[in-house]
């Protein structure tokens, strides 16, 4: 009898997706439903395209953040790395006369180096990720300000603005940046689900020591994750430059917390090892939908901040709750 009950419970649990992955979807759908009832301008392809455009930068940063949080780490330096990348690629292309493609490469490299520095300090010096990235956040911010003279970089060549351009899909204008972001999510989904290095990230996040004992080179995995995240911040920098049309040294100041918000809203556990990249995309979209919807309704933006805060707490509470039960 006891065994029977256990079996039933388990099969029941297996059939339903866990609450933590369903909750974000429901919240997003409920919000969309609500806003479409409130404003007849909400439900249109153009408006959804707009929301997607608005979340591209944080969306791509949040991919890197998800990878790091899956390893039970955290990255506070991501926004600053992004700002550094955007200044490097724009200044190289304008002031130093480097070919735009090469300039973009230099920006990506700069961000990857920040990632390498984070990863090296976490693995080789064995410092907690929170402390490491708190430090590099400040260092990278200062470097960006000094290098740019705190000045916005303007008059960019068209090549840098490509991802801000749009193409037509039916009645809707979609930016190439949006496509790139969605493609990166798809790639990451595949990477985490179907490749050995992807599975290793989960293993390290679940239990670093156990992973090491099974023969996974945990330090290597961690270093790779931080570098990969850095590269993603570089791509986010390119998207930011294309979207805003300038290289902005003040950019990214709240992107660390915004990306963590998205990861948490998407149901990824801050304790590592559990979570899905698709959830992060939904988390990013929830924030974007609320900002857009509340503006369309004429609600002051401070309420958007409040709603986001409430949702974050709800999301973590749900995570705790399901974790205890599972």
């Amino acid at each position, binding site marked *: 009898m006891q065994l029977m009950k256990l079996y039933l419970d388990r099969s029941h649990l297996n059939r339903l997706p866990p609450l933590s992955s369903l909750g974000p979807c429901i919240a997003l759908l*409920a919000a969309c439903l609500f806003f479409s009832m409130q404003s007849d301008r909400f439900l249109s392809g153009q408006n959804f395209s707009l929301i997607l455009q608005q979340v591209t930068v944080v969306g791509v940063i949040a991919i890197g953040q998800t990878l790091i949080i899956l390893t039970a780490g955290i990255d506070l330096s991501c926004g600053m790395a992004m700002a550094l990348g955007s200044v490097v690629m724009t200044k190289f292309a304008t002031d130093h006369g480097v070919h735009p493609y090469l300039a973009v490469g230099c920006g990506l490299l700069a961000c990857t180096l920040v990632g390498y520095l984070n990863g090296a300090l976490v693995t080789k010096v064995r410092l907690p990720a929170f402390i490491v990235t708190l430090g590099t956040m400040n260092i990278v911010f200062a470097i960006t300000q000094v290098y740019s003279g705190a000045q916005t970089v303007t008059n960019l060549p068209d090549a840098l603005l490509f991802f801000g351009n749009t193409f037509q899909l039916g009645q809707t204008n979609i930016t190439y940046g949006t496509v790139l972001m969605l493609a990166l999510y798809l790639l990451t989904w595949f990477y985490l689900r179907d490749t050995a290095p992807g599975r290793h990230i989960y293993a390290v996040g679940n239990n670093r020591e156990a992973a090491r004992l099974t023969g996974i080179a945990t330090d290597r995995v961690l270093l790779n994750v931080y570098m990969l995240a850095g590269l993603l911040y570089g791509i986010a920098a390119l998207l930011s430059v294309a979207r805003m049309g300038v290289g902005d040294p003040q950019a990214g100041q709240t992107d660390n917390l915004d990306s963590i918000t998205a990861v948490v809203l998407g149901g990824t556990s801050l304790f590592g090892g559990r979570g899905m990249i698709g959830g992060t995309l939904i988390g990013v979209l929830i924030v974007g939908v609320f900002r857009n919807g509340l503006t369309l*309704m*004429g609600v002051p933006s401070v309420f958007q901040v409040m709603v986001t805060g409430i949702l974050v707490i709800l999301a973590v509470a749900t995570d705790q709750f399901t974790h205890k039960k599972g």
Partner: protein
Amino acid sequence: MTLKHRIALAILTMAAGLTGAADQPVIGLITKTDTNPYFVKMKEGAQEAAKAKGVKLLTAAGKSDGDNAGQIAAIENMIAAGAKVILITPSDARAIVPTLKKARAQGVMVITLDSPTDPQTAADALFATDNFKAGVLIGEYAKAAFGDKPAKIATLDLFPGHPVGIQRHDGFLQGFGVKKGDASIVCMQDSYGDQAKGQTAMENCLQKNPEINLVYTINEPAAAGAYKALKAAGKEKSVMILSVDGGCDGVRNVKAGVIAATSQQYPLRMAALGVDAGAEYIKTGKKVSGYVDTGVMLITDKQQKNIESKDSAFGLNACWGKK
């Protein structure tokens, strides 16, 4: 789940109660932040004017000063909501330019309030305080007060590259009659317009040169911070602090003798004029252009000869923040 659902629904219904009527002409107001009393006053002025003109006012703000991405999203969302006019206090004078260009290409009239874009022509019009003049006023006041007494000046500025900070700073120097790089300027520090940072900056300046006797501050919170530092060093009586803004706390500090004089600006008037111009554009298609000076007035209780000023009672009546 049900709990989450119920709470979410409660929030959403609450938000629903806040919606206004549909199908009115729409004007958007985007400030730098939601929390600064200066922008709260600006919003108040816009709301009153919008009510009087029968237009719907949408408001949004960046998360923090310098949040350009947040302002861009706000502009896009407001245009999606049908706004024909955007009033904005740009957080980043240059970074916002490409987005404003796109908005104007769609027939939206853009008026910058309080601070200009770089170049200023990126917006249709600028309704703002003449920040250079605001600086000149306190500079001239200090000159009248100092006469031939040698000055050792500390300036607590905004942050590097910000046009408003530069204009006020330069205006002050011109009003006082010293050139940039003059030996009498013994310390220059960024305060970010923040009281705590202003205090730290002043403390460090006093370490550098204890003989400082004249302090220019970018705004009154920075002035309050400077005063705390001077008081701790026992110098609050012998040093003159000057400022710009005219917020209620600032004017009270003028009354209390903490700040000798401040140049007061009028955010409520900026916003009201902006909404009026916006309503006019929606009705008739007539755009405003160029720079509209929304006025600045020297507030002090220690009047100087030949310097036009009003007292703190006048200032308190016209200030923003908690009266």
